[in-house]
């Protein structure tokens, strides 16, 4: 790995902010002293194992748990019938028809995907629970499954949820500008039959799970878990369980990766809660890897049908129209939010003003989808990047030039997109220059010739992409006008304790993003103290008063919402400290400064109160003050400035910040086998002000690795009966150390004008690696028949098909020119 810190150090924010302060989380994690949910144990706890459906679609005619209950060491069971009595269906985000879906913690009456939990069994050991699960007798009457979203929408398709009257969960037309006029003005119209974005997810190494206790005296559950969006889990669970949110205490500490995949664990958590109450003992549930693959949070699979692109003779892109068909899987656990989230980046990086997208989402007999790193935007950004490269390929434009020409330009910033989103800052052409320099684009033809001499096809690909962060939850009203969510928020508390300890609590649920470190950096610079004086509590606890409705770690927002809250609380505490010092020294507040860990008189630095004195006075020595001394315990709720979007026009600012990722790769293809090797890779990232450049680069690397995996190896493949063919790490190939190409990184810092620290949310990477590898493969294939890449996932056999029958993919693209 070669890091070129092109812009490093140009924006020094303070003694701590802007520095690559080594992570403070690491000390416990490298010693095996992290606290993951599965490390939490309680006396007498029972291990939960789910009996799961072996059928993709089946009526459950009977369940007999008696043999399981007779096995020694089995504590009890829970069936769908009990769940249907004890709980209400989960609240649905969808408007009709998706609103009619009835989703419970366990299958009720019918199973709708292979791996769906049908019965839960609890026993004294993991092994005994698994054994007992095998003794549960479930009689199924298999039904015909439907595993393709396009087929699911066809007349006569098997219906998953009869209440919905079909498999459609959401449909909407999104159109801005004057699309017909754009096509009338176009010199060329490029038509693309079908593009397909594949189904995968980022498979965090730690599976989902929880240790759940029920306090009979207070009727409260405590969940030690790895859910990454407790606010969402609570609003799903509370009404279903018919309890107030105060009865649901959610605690996290270390989480073994999330990537969005740990947002929708609420059904399993409800099963744990019901069993903890029923059996009067703590419940331990740890998902096995196969169970995770079969049932947890697949990424959205999406087709783009009948795409048309309006292009001027000089390469100016005027607009597109397309029909997106999205596959939600069997239940709507976070969907159909994917039906609006994509529109945060409807225009991609480009200036086209006339866009039309018909979004249709279907339910199928596959695992439910939920957010996965780059959620819904990645699919759409892949589409826009594919469109650019296909247009360039078919009309003979240079993929670099057509991008440069059509990018939103730095002088346009802040740029309002056709749908009212505001790109806050950035210099896309400069990032493109930089990434081309890193990848050595000027020598690409020589390298292509050299590779050809070895019998290899070499290609260069660009993936320019955005990471929109800090959601305006008001966008949910664009898919369901009845919803009452809008804006966003996050909470932090900062206090000065008796011995002068600066203690920070966060509402977030980090999964490796280093929040303890970056929060300490921000607080240290505001209080002008050493970063080691700041203690950031690890994890999230909804018992603390340090969370709000949107608290969690998801959707690229911590550097804005989380650190915005930290900054707000630290500013308030700094004010308290100055005020107390002014009271003690009986001088105006303006005469006081915080410096070197003291509050002191500016003109007389000898008159200085250490943090210990400032903490001790209000907390433990407060008699005799003529007025109340400040509390030294401050809470701040950061709320980004949002309006509810215009529901009629589907218009408004949906996210506060737009980080830029410019990825480029060089690939080599073996024409004999279709095997693609990424031989060089470069990533330029601009996420505004970087609080900790090393952590930012780590996120860039991680997102790159996910994208490389998704582009070449990782896929949730189903057979026609709805069996997942890649249910473990043997069949689902996660890249390992030998798979990774050499990487060069660089950073640009274009501060956001809209955020408290000039930061932008980042970390999801927008799928840049998928986009650039697709582009690189298409470039390499130019010398061998000129096939068009129409799928996001290109394992060797798909590339081999492109090589052996290039006319087929070429025939799916048509150009009409006037």
């Amino acid at each position, binding site marked *: 790995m070669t890091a070129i810190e092109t812009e490093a150090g140009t924006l020094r924010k303070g003694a701590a902010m802007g520095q690559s302060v080594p992570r403070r989380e690491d000390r416990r994690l490298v010693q095996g002293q992290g606290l993951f949910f599965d490390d939490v144990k309680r006396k007498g706890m029972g291990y939960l194992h789910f009996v799961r459906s072996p059928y993709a679609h089946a009526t459950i005619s009977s369940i007999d748990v008696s043999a399981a209950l007779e096995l020694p060491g089995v504590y009890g069971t829970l069936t769908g019938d009990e769940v249907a009595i004890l709980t209400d269906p989960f609240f649905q985000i969808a408007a009709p028809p998706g609103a009619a879906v009835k989703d419970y913690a366990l299958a009720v009456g019918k199973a709708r995907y292979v791996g769906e939990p049908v019965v839960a069994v609890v026993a004294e050991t993991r*092994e005994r629970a698994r054994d007992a699960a095998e003794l549960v007798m479930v009689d199924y009457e298999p039904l015909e499954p439907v595993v393709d979203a396009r087929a699911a929408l066809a007349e006569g398709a098997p219906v998953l949820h009869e209440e919905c009257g079909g498999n459609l969960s959401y449909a909407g037309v999104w159109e801005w500008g004057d699309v017909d006029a754009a096509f009338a003005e176009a010199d060329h119209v490029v038509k693309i039959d079908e593009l397909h974005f594949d189904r995968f997810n980022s498979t965090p190494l730690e599976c989902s799970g929880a240790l759940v206790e029920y306090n009979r005296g207070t009727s409260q559950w405590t969940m030690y878990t790895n859910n990454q969006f407790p606010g969402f889990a609570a609003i799903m669970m509370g009404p279903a369980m018919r309890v107030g949110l105060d009865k649901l205490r959610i605690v996290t500490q270390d989480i073994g990766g999330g990537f969005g995949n740990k947002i929708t664990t609420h059904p399993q958590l409800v099963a744990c809660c019901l069993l903890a109450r029923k059996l009067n003992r703590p419940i331990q549930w740890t998902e096995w890897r196969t169970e995770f693959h079969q049932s947890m949070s697949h990424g959205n699979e999406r087709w783009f049908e009948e795409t048309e692109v309006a292009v001027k003779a000089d390469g100016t892109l005027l607009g597109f129209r397309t029909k997106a068909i999205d596959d939600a899987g069997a239940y709507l656990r976070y969907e159909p939010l994917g039906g609006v989230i994509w529109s945060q980046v409807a225009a991609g990086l480009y200036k086209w003003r006339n866009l039309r997208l018909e979004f249709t989402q279907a339910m199928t007999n596959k695992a439910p989808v939920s957010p996965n790193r780059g959620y819904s935007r990645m699919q759409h950004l892949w589409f826009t990047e594919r469109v650019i490269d296909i247009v360039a390929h078919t009309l003979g434009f240079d993929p670099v030039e057509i991008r440069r020409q059509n990018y939103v330009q730095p002088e346009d910033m802040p740029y309002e997109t056709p749908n009212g989103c505001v790109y806050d800052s950035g210099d896309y052409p400069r990032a493109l220059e930089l990434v081309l320099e890193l990848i050595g684009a000027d020598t690409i033809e020589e390298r292509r010739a050299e590779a050809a001499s070895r019998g290899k096809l070499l290609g260069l690909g660009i993936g320019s992409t955005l990471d929109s962060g800090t959601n305006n939850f008001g966008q949910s009203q664009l898919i369901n006008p009845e919803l009452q969510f809008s804006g966003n928020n996050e909470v932090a508390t900062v206090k000065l304790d008796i011995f002068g300890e600066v203690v920070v609590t966060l509402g977030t649920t980090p*999964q490796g993003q280093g929040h303890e470190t970056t929060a300490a950096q921000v607080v240290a610079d505001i209080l002008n103290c050493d970063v080691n004086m700041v203690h950031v509590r690890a994890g999230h606890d909804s018992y603390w008063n340090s969370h709000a409705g949107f608290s969690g770690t998801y959707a690229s927002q911590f550097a804005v919402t989380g650190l915005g809250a930290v900054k707000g609380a630290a500013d308030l505490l700094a004010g308290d400290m100055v005020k107390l010092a002014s009271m003690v020294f009986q001088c105006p507040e303006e005469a006081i400064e915080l410096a070197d860990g003291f509050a002191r008189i500016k003109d007389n630095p000898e008159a200085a109160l250490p943090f210990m004195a400032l903490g001790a006075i209000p907390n433990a020595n407060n008699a005799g003050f003529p007025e109340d001394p400040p509390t030294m315990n401050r809470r701040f709720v950061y709320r980004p400035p949002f309006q509810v979007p215009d529901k009629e026009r589907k218009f408004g600012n949906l996210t506060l910040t737009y980080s830029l990722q410019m990825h480029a790769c060089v690939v080599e293809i073996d024409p004999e086998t279709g095997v693609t090797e990424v031989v060089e890779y470069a990533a330029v990232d601009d996420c505004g002000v970087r609080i900790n450049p090393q*952590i930012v680069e780590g996120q860039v690397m991680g997102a790159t690795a996910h994208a490389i995996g998704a582009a070449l190896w990782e896929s949730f493949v189903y057979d026609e009966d709805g069996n997942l063919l890649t249910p473990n790490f043997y069949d689902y190939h996660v890249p*390992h150390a030998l798979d990774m190409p050499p990487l060069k990184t660089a950073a640009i810092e274009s501060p956001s004008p809209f955020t408290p620290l000039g930061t932008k949310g980042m970390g999801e990477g927008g799928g840049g690696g998928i986009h650039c590898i697709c582009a690189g493969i298409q470039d390499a294939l130019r010398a061998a028949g000129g096939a068009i890449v129409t799928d996001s996932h290109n394992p060797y056999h798909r590339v081999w098909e492109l090589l052996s029958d290039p006319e087929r993919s070429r025939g799916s693209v048509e150009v009409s020119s006037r």
Partner: protein
Amino acid sequence: MATTSTRKTISVEINGRTHERDVPASMLLVHFLRDELDLTGTHVGCDTGSCGACTVQLRGDAVKSCCLLAVQADGASITTVEGLAGDEGELTPLQQSFNEHHALQCGYCTPGMLMSATALLEHNPHPSEDDVKVALQGNLCRCTGYWNIIDAVVAAGEGGAR
């Protein structure tokens, strides 16, 4: 159905201390470490021996403790991630190097990575980048993309942490 009722008494030396326990014959070594001895630094990431989060050193070799039964470790000596740092918590050069190179994010794969890399460094004190990649190919990381992990191990081999 597996025979979870068959039990056996085993004696295993772990991080220099001998533990004697009566365990089910079907218990995996990783669950013995985690559930019986509360050595929760050793993690479980898959069902198939693919991910390496459970890697420990058994008689000096890096092994995946999810692929062994506890009873198979009877009489053996094992080092887990908890056995790396000194008694006063002083980190090994490799652990220090992981911190300096940002070689971990969520930290879930880290114990296994450290155990595989420690075994590598014991056999090959100055590994090349390729040596490290080969040694770590059985350990999956989903956060870092491996680049910083490889740098950290190579740097540790070049004379310890900076």
